[in-house]
């Protein structure tokens, strides 16, 4: 079920820092990271496109450097020990002199080594504290407030606004303005999920019965992919989320479009398609603004055609995949709540025509 043709906004921004420099101490990465980075959609903890991820990236560099140094030193001592130690075998008379008189010299060296390690550990602790303070200090004025709700296995996003009329709901694809802080309130509808947008920030759990928040900022336009990180059942692997960071004007336009109800079907075919939607099982779970379909069990489809993917980041959103998804989702994503819908071909095509109008 791989994606043919990438559903993402194709503009690939310049990374804030080169991956190679980040991980220069991990040789294997030098070899493989470029190959991996070439085609991959942006889901990479080593390439920061937001201030929060940058803080963590800095901490990562520091920690990696220090740990690599320690690794090298201890290993050097270890190899020297093996190299310089005399050889013996089972017949060698064991040297038990140390039982009689403790080896003060060796103890002193070990004490020094332990002392130095302690200093290193304190340095790590300090760096961590500094980083968490930096993360907490991100300014939040005129932030975008989003309530993100985890479902098995998709994401429901409610854009909050002081004025209820300006609130709207979408699913599986967030749009955020570049350079403006985003405050995401995390909740879960069933089991524990975890929001992870590696290029923008670290993880945060969505725990039923609790709410938590994650604040981040995208400093570069682009499409960032996130994925549920906490094992959440059968389709844990198929629970992805796209975050489209775009200039404020574009974002405002998008938001304005989202607040509109679905356009009235113009042609007879699309009108037929809407009847199919409202008459069949679709309307039992999905909502389309401006129609009688207002169920909340499945993703809101009011502006389905505007999204890059369907089935929560699993398939590119084009007529073929959409048709396949409607007729037989259980083969594509076994266990998903969407049932197989057996309907005559013309009904299906009418339905697809209608859905494609939901820009």
């Amino acid at each position, binding site marked *: 079920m791989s994606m043919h043709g990438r559903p993402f906004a194709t503009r690939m921004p310049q990374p804030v820092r080169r991956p190679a420099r980040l991980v220069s101490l991990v040789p*294997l990465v030098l070899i493989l990271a470029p190959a991996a980075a070439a085609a991959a959609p942006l889901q990479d903890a080593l390439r920061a496109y937001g201030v929060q991820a940058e803080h963590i990236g800095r901490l990562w560099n520091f920690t990696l450097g220090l740990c690599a140094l320690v690794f090298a030193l201890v290993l050097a001592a270890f190899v020297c020990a093996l190299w310089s130690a005399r050889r013996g075998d089972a017949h060698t008379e*064991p040297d038990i002199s140390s039982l009689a008189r403790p080896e003060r010299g060796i103890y002193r060296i070990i004490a020094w*080594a332990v002392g130095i390690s302690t200093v290193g550990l304190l340095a790590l602790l300090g760096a961590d504290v500094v980083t*968490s303070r930096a993360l907490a200090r991100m300014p939040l004025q005129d932030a975008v407030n989003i309530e993100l709700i985890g479902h098995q296995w998709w994401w429901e996003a409610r854009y909050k606004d002081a004025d209820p009329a300006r609130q709207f709901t979408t699913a599986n694809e967030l749009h955020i303005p570049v350079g403006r802080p985003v405050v995401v309130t995390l909740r879960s509808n069933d089991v524990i999920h975890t929001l992870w947008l590696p290029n923008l920030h670290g993880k945060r759990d969505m*725990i039923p019965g609790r709410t938590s928040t994650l604040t981040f900022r995208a400093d570069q336009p682009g499409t960032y992919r996130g994925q549920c990180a906490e094992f959440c059942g059968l*389709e844990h692997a198929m629970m992805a989320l796209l975050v489209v960071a775009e200039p404020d004007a574009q974002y405002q336009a998008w938001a304005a479009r989202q607040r509109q109800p679905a356009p009235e079907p113009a042609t007879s075919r699309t009108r037929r398609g809407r009847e199919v939607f409202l008459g069949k099982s679709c309307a039992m779970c999905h909502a389309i603004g401006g129609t009688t379909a207002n169920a909340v069990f499945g993703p809101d489809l009011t502006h389905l055609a505007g999204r890059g993917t369907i089935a929560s980041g699993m398939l590119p959103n084009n007529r073929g995949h959409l048709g396949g998804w409607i007729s037989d989702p259980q083969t594509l994503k076994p266990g998903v709540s969407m049932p197989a819908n057996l309907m005559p071909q013309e009904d299906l095509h009418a339905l697809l025509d209608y859905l494609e109008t939901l820009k």
Partner: protein
Amino acid sequence: MSVADSTTQPRPARGPGSVAPSAPPAPSLAPHEAETLEQTWRDPPGIIGWFAAVNHKTISLRFMVTTFLFFIAGGLLALAIRLQLARPDGKLAGPDLYNQLFTMHGSTMMFLFAVPVMQAVATYLVPLMIGARSVAFPRMNAFAYWIFTLGGLMLFIAFFMGIGPDAGWFAYVPLSGPQYSPGKRVDFWAQMITFTELSAIMEAIVLITTIFKMRAPGMTLNRMPLFVWTMLAASFMVLFAMPAVMLGSTALITDRLVGTHFYNPGEGGDALLWQHLFWFFGHPEVYLIFIPPLGFMSSIIATFSRRPIVGYSAMVLALIGTAFFAFGLWVHHMFATNLPELGKTFFTAASLMIAIPTALQIFCWIATLWSGRISFKTPLLFVLAFFVILLAGGLTGLMLASVSLDTQLHDSFFVVAHLHYVLMGGAVFPLFGAFYYWFPKFTGRLLSERLGKWQFWLFFIGFNVAFFPMHVLGLQGMPRRIYTYPEEMGWGSLNMVATAGAFMIGASVLLFIVNVARSRRHGAPAGPNPWGAGTLEWSVASPPPAGNFEMVPIVYGRYPLWEKPRLPSHVAGLINEHREVLITSVADAELDHRLWLPASSYWPFLSALAVTALFVGSIFTPWAVVWAAVPVAIGTTMWFWPKRSTSDMRVASEQHPELFK
């Protein structure tokens, strides 16, 4: 480097060091007395006798074989997982099967292999190392083995019946709860926990009592071999850690079966309660998997660098410190939850600080090697791998200890890499070293050095090929426990590499099996002390007689076989016709009294069957607890009930000791 080319031929059968040249001939029993002693401690013959065996060596060997079989099973599951992930959009296993695969793999390795195998090895070695003829409570020891085996079998039978657990080895609620895991899958998992924890707790009590009360006269606490110290520390950790998960899994089962609300936010419960209970056990568990191998390390390094370990007391204090701090870290598994940030920082500090005792031990070992005279035998090779792999795992652990970094690394493949570096490097490599080291003691024959070296290098290279790429995968954003991933995520190549490495590991384990199978028959005869080691287990024949020591030795130092023998060298006057053991005082191992241990009995096995019926039945109806309690009570009572003839004999020996001289 020198490790590679220092291969030598197997040792000649009899090594030196067992008796220093100037020593007077060690006193021994007359042949007929020795035969009586052997008869007394031997297990009864026949099938019935097989189920009645309580000799600690018999039980321990079965325990080791059983845990190793579970290790093989878990490894095969791992290979299946790697095959599925080898290429993007893998079609080998659907999500349902895949979730069962990794849940079974994790649960098997953690609960059915890593913890019990350490206790299994310990129940064989500890009595021999401390100069005892048996473990305390031999029947409880047997019961613990049976209950463990039956629990493990239950889990795998359930798996093959398609009732395999699928909620992950830490079974987070609510996913593992009644609503999102319908059916009986998770119930079997939770009951398996009860089985194995029960077994682990009993083994811990057996070991603690053995170590405290049955050491040979003169083996004061600060003369104990470091391995015995590690088992003491680990056993105490078991006593405090296991209850947490037993309580948690009991609450999970009652939630699922009788509708309690511990984890139901709708009725005042809380999903995080499970995480607290589980990780309050789960993190110490990592350390009680990792601490006994520290004892393997100390034994093997001392022997193969021909000198005592540097800084005995420092090592002991480090062990105790590790065991203690291990209980203060559990929240670093929950950094992604919405707990207060200040609290998280405290746990960051604790998680970093626990590195200090480990560092201390590593430095002491390096100093020992440096100032010793090394012989690069296979056991030492496996132990040396520890310094590379565990070091790397420990350092990635420091990264995970940081709250901010952890939010990126948590639940990604980076964690998978880290935990395998810690557990394989910290436990499995030393464990293989220990097998190569003590196999001669178990069987009387040496394992082949050549195959051993092959296995080592296959394992060492394969391991790094398999797990190093996972660090990178995690950083590239690959989450744990996904059954597949789309092609353009670009994770394909590294996953293929990892799978190749996994199969190299498989091949090396296969070599190990071949080596054991060959050497059990055709291996070079070992003799009592093939490595010229210094601790007591090497003073007896290989394999040891049923009663371990013909005459219980008296100990004057930490390496009795290396130091100059002193008189009196052995204990006389223990009755050979009964399983009489010497009980000594806790701190200084001064003579205290002579105890008769119970003889063989099949009641521990029958009681284990009854308990199994109770646990499995309770999965289907709470009333099973009531009805099955009857056979359990009968079984345990019969197990306890003394035999009249034996008691009369004992009474006679108490009233007329002179008759029994």
